[in-house]
């Protein structure tokens, strides 16, 4: 069973994404409501992948990703950014960070897990 960590300050998005991945794919989901909490949980739980929101108060998604990369305990974990920004310039800027993928919100709860699996080669 795959283990996913969702880092998002918005509780509705966290709960919908968790519900989707648990119900549709049967994956184990952990959540964090801030970048700082996400760093700690990633190091402790060693998820197979991380879904990371871009816009968060305090440490935002890109800053959280950079911290994950600095830590040898988490640098190997593939990260997919989640963003409601749809402009190509924004998505290109996020992709340039070195993340595995940039996923756009809103997502389809029925197909989110398949999207993640395709990106990570879990099929």
């Amino acid at each position, binding site marked *: 069973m795959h283990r996913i960590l969702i880092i998002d300050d918005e*509780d*509705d998005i966290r709960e*919908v994404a968790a*519900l989707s991945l648990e119900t*549709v794919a049967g994956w184990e989901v952990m959540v964090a409501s801030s970048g700082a909490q996400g760093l700690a949980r990633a190091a402790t739980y060693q998820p197979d992948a991380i879904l990371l929101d871009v816009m968060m108060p305090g440490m935002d998604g890109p800053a959280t990703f950079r911290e994950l990369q600095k830590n040898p305990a988490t640098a190997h974990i593939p990260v997919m950014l989640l963003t*409601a920004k749809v402009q190509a310039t924004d998505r290109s800027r996020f992709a340039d960070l070195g993340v595995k993928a940039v996923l756009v*919100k*809103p*997502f389809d709860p029925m197909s989110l897990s398949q999207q993640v699996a395709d990106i990570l080669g879990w099929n």
Partner: protein
Amino acid sequence: MGDGAASQLSDAMNRLWEKFLPQMEGRVATLEDAAARLASGADLTQVALGNAAADAHKLAGVLGTFGLKEGTELAREAEGLFEGVPGADAATVARLVAIADGLKRLIAGRRP
């Protein structure tokens, strides 16, 4: 995914919708209030404009997840317009008022 799991997900999504409905209505109220104040000629602070743009951004990110793709598009448009204020002309302000009204109707009309 089997029909059972799809039905289970749909039921759970409807429960989440009910849970988060007050939060979404509150976000729309923020947009509605900001638009109404602009329409009345009031100057909004940068903080108030930022809050309206942020709530529009959050709505854009979540409404489509619950099947309200039109809501996502409206909220996305509102986010861009609020980010463009100050200096908004009367047509822009009228559009913001209409978007807030449209979002209220879409959210109130969502059916499982």
